[in-house]
């Protein structure tokens, strides 16, 4: 069964707007990662946040983690049409163990 659940399932915005995607999970984690997948391609790693971190930035990406609520959010600022893709959160229970992925959020950025 999937550990993570993303919300919303689909999101459509205009270029330049910000996009926020949320992820909830059920069990204790070592870290939480976000991946992106373009149609017909493999997943690409975006950012990792450890269980003892609350916020992390990478370029236009901002990730937050609230372990008390077992939730994370991914914010993409100043979105571009090229950001159109599916976004997945993934968790692992311990370092080096398997990653469990959520169902994903399909983001569409309209030019």
């Amino acid at each position, binding site marked *: 069964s999937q550990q993570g659940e993303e919300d919303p399932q689909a999101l459509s915005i205009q270029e330049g707007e910000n996009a926020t995607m949320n992820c909830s999970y059920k069990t204790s984690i070592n870290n939480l990662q976000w991946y992106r997948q373009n149609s017909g391609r*493999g997943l690409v790693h975006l950012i990792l946040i450890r269980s003892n971190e609350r916020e992390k930035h990478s370029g236009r990406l901002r990730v937050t983690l609230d372990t008390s609520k077992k939730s994370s959010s991914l914010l993409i600022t100043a979105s571009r049409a090229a950001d159109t893709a599916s976004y997945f959160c993934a968790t692992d229970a311990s370092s*080096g163990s398997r990653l469990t*992925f959520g169902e994903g959020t399909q983001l569409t950025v309209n030019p």
Partner: protein
Amino acid sequence: GAGVSQTPSNKVTEKGKYVELRCDPISGHTALYWYRQSLGQGPEFLIYFQGTGAADDSGLPNDRFFAVRPEGSVSTLKIQRTERGDSAVYLCASSSGQGDSPLHFGNGTRLTVT
């Protein structure tokens, strides 16, 4: 090569046949993962290798599925007596196996069982 390579990219087979899916990980990556992804869903874990041995095979759905990595590099996922429900994209990923190193995915093999 520069990335994870999976072959074939597409495979169509008849119900009941045997198939093999190949994964070439990034050179030097000790950890290798197989996932299965159905349309509109997230990747579902199948099996994870650390070196030559399967560190976690708890995601294999039944005994028709088997994977090997005999020399700690290339891996083959084998499916016997295929069923229509096996149709999916099979994704392979590798990582350095160090700490919290991210997974690097191939583009997958799309398996269609008719």
